[in-house]
């Protein structure tokens, strides 16, 4: 049996409290406040204490989906990515790069946001990039 305590940052608001994810044999068991964290010093709110629960939710998507005739079917990554790339290429060809919008996420990491806006600007060729900072 293997048990780990992995440092992470709570994703439920902009405060950025430090947590430890307790795992046993690769399963997420609980969220523990990180005592020596500079922001939260070993305290959390109700959301932080239950941070692991949404990750363990049976409602999670497990595979990429493609809608065919109004219904979602499971698909492989290669297919989902290819379909998307083809459709975006078509749209860019037909209407130009500014016909595409990208909504990046305030819940992704810096690396992912950087990459998403790079995708919009360098690959799609548009500055139509925004996220929910206003909402």
């Amino acid at each position, binding site marked *: 049996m293997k048990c780990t305590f992995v440092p992470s940052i709570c994703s439920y608001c902009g405060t950025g409290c430090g947590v430890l994810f*307790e795992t046993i044999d690769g399963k997420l068991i609980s969220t523990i406040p990180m*005592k020596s964290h500079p922001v939260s010093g070993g305290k959390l709110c109700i959301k932080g204490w239950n941070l*692991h629960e949404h990750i363990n939710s049976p409602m999670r998507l497990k595979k990429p989906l493609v809608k065919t005739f109004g219904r979602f079917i499971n698909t492989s990554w290669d297919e989902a990515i290819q379909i998307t790339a083809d459709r975006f290429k078509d749209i860019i060809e037909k209407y130009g790069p500014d016909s595409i919008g990208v909504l990046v996420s305030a819940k992704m990491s810096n690396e992912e946001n950087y990459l998403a806006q790079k995708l919009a600007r360098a690959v799609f060729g548009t500055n139509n990039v925004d996220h929910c900072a206003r909402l």
Partner: protein
Amino acid sequence: MKRKVKEWLEDGTVDLFLGYRMNCGHPLPHCFTKEEIDDVEHLLVSRTRYSLEKIATHLAKRDPELKIGLLARDCNQRAINVLTIWHQLDKDKIFALNVNCCPSPIKPQADCSYMSGEQTSSYKVQVGIDNLMDIEKADDFSDQEKNVRWMYEFQKCLKCYGCRNICPVCFCAECTLEHKDLIGPGRLPPQIPIFHLVRAAHMAGRCIDCGLCEDACPMDIPLRLLYRKVGEIVKNVFDYNTGESSEQSPLSLLGEKVSLSLKPM
């Protein structure tokens, strides 16, 4: 100490050992195993304290045969006693490596860092309850003043349930604090004082005075003092020393049967 842990892991006395190690300047809990025996060199005893015995109960629930070693100060030891009395841990499967308590007034030559906390702020001393106050002092207030002061503290509550979540001896599958008929959900602060008094009542005969609850409280509510008072009543009325006595407390709100089913997570 490191030698002992290595010995235990190597000869199979324990399957794993819960302690601490430094990770990027932060002392964090760590599970040492035979497979990574060299890591034991990094085993650390620090003032930082996590509820290792609660983690042990998580492990024991998944594999009741697992032999668990852990680093134990006096408070951890008291918690382990309570947890074995209430069948959350099997005393034959738990191996505590006793380390010196952080220094404490409870024990000579020792003082628990959780007892000599930071100085309470002036305004709080004036209107609320001084976290460093002893029980007799807190009892000296008139009933009315006690009420006003405690209500000031309870009103700050963010309903994080941190006091319950971090508590090594809170293990019920269903928690009264989440019972809608007793405490209305969805409001901040929670219904006071019932939220805190219900928890205090449930701590009778269970609280081992480790101080982790107060340490986890974002609003510095003097929970340790509150539960210590409850513990004092149990001691005076029933002559029961929580954490030291070898039987279940005569006063229990846990009902006839203690559920051993997994807590919903």
